[in-house]
């Protein structure tokens, strides 16, 4: 079986995608868990002319930098081509991978989140967020950042810890989490 890797955008014009990476997990309030679409996460700010950034999520602030990736990453989209004969047979489903974007840098936040506790910070936070989105009449609640115990070294796994990807994984839609 073969999976063709296509590139519909062409070599010159492969659009660049962006990545924000932070330690831990951003969690929404339980009432928003199932409908995150369009929910605001936070504010990305570049305070100076350097490639330093802050990312404010709820009352937490992260500091990070924009770093070029050592190797580029491609964004692939799996496209199922249904074969006309044998439609019922899963094995006959042809799949193509389409390159729809390239990623060359990421903004990486590797610090512990800092709580914006000073009243000045908080008031500016509320100034910015009050009168905010209201969904179904409930006040908007920002997601919170939850640190996981894994360090960045562990997060930047080398391939020794990577698992082999079976062909099946590429054809069916497994999530690897």
């Amino acid at each position, binding site marked *: 079986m073969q*999976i063709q890797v296509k590139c519909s955008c062409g070599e010159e014009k492969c659009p660049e995608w962006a990545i924000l990476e932070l330690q831990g997990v951003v969690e929404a309030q339980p009432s928003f868990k199932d409908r995150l679409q369009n929910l605001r996460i936070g504010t990305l700010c570049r305070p100076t002319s350097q490639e330093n950034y802050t990312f404010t999520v709820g009352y937490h602030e992260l500091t990070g930098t924009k770093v070029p990736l050592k190797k580029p990453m*491609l964004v692939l989209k799996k*496209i199922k081509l249904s074969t006309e004969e044998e439609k019922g047979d899963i094995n006959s489903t042809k799949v193509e991978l389409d390159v729809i974007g390239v990623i060359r840098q990421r903004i990486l936040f590797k610090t512990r989140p800092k709580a914006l506790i000073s009243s000045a910070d908080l008031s500016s936070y509320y100034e910015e967020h009050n009168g905010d989105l209201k969904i179904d009449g409930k006040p908007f609640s920002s997601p919170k950042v939850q640190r996981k115990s894994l360090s960045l070294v562990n997060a930047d796994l080398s391939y020794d810890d990577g698992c*082999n990807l079976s062909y099946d994984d590429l054809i069916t839609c497994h999530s690897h989490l």
Partner: protein
Amino acid sequence: MEIEKSLPYGEGGAEAILNVQSNTSISIAYHQLFGPHDDLMLLELDEKLLPDILNQRVTLRGQPDEDAVLCTQSKTYAIKFVGTSNSVFLIPPSNLSIALGASSNSSEKDHDNAVVASVIKVVPGSMELVEVAPRLDKLKLLLSENPYSFDEVSQMNTELTHKNKGLYSWSDLVEKVQASDEELCTGLRALAAVEIDGYWRSLDENFVDEILNMLLHNAVLNDWLLSALNEDEVLPVLEADGFPREIVRHCLGVYGSKVVDETRGGCTWRLEERPVCVHFARVILRGKKMNLERFMEEWRKKVPEGMNGSFDVLEGEVLTEKIGIETRIYAFSVSSLPSVPAERFSKLFQEKPKWEWKELQPFVRDLKVPGLSSEGLLLKYTRRSQPSADAEPIFSAR
């Protein structure tokens, strides 16, 4: 959608993130299409592979139960999934709708002049590529299913009931074998395979033996020089004996090499000593162990005149063992061994627990693992011992 209407931000996408001006900020939100999007995957790769990918010269190959590999024109890469515990927010460009086939993004409106970049997915990790040796053992296996034999030739086209059984065209092989096009070509050459009626076949050993014997026989009869066999003379003679021209020409290529000879017309071939001598040794040793002297005697009789079968050409084809005062020889060909290093060494030590370097070398020198030297291979898979400083080192299983 209510939510969408109430979103008071303009749309900036990845461009906005990549070009944040100093002293400004942008909002980050979940995309209106935010979801698991299992069909979106990230692939990390070397800059030098980008042109191959973007020019669509790359495929993934394998069967559903195999680990996937990615093949360029010339190389094979294993694909590994690298998970991360970090939250990786993937942000597409603002015109993502085209790529995802969704309806156009209606949130372009710009109520507040605030720019928003939207996260389409939290990525659990990415795939990366590790160069590997092509997996050609399967090619060997596939071609051994139905070798081309004299029976099939003499049967002509009468009843080819087995027509499609164990027969593989190029496109079948590409679907089944995990190797790049170039590596597959090299593999087919190494197996002396030939394309017959659109299918890649290996030749039955008996059939090859008949062809070689017939060729040598006719060379004597017709005073042909083994170092200058003229195709225009050789092919018609062998064809008259029932051997198809294409197959004979293929054998000339396997057991000889083309000679540039402008004094004689047509295509001229020189029969090469090594493959011819190895062939006859194999035929003699088929299925049995022999006393070394007796073998040498028989072998020299078989080898055509002008070629002096020296024992060296059998490197990597035979093994010897001492039983009492007798030395016995038997066929043990490197080409019959697996090409995966761990399996190769396991077979070798199963055959013989201890090897001297001189013996071992012909059976491991073809092993190539990207990123590992041959010393590295030995360190990884063997134990080296040296009884005294000036003694030959001995290799055994780890």
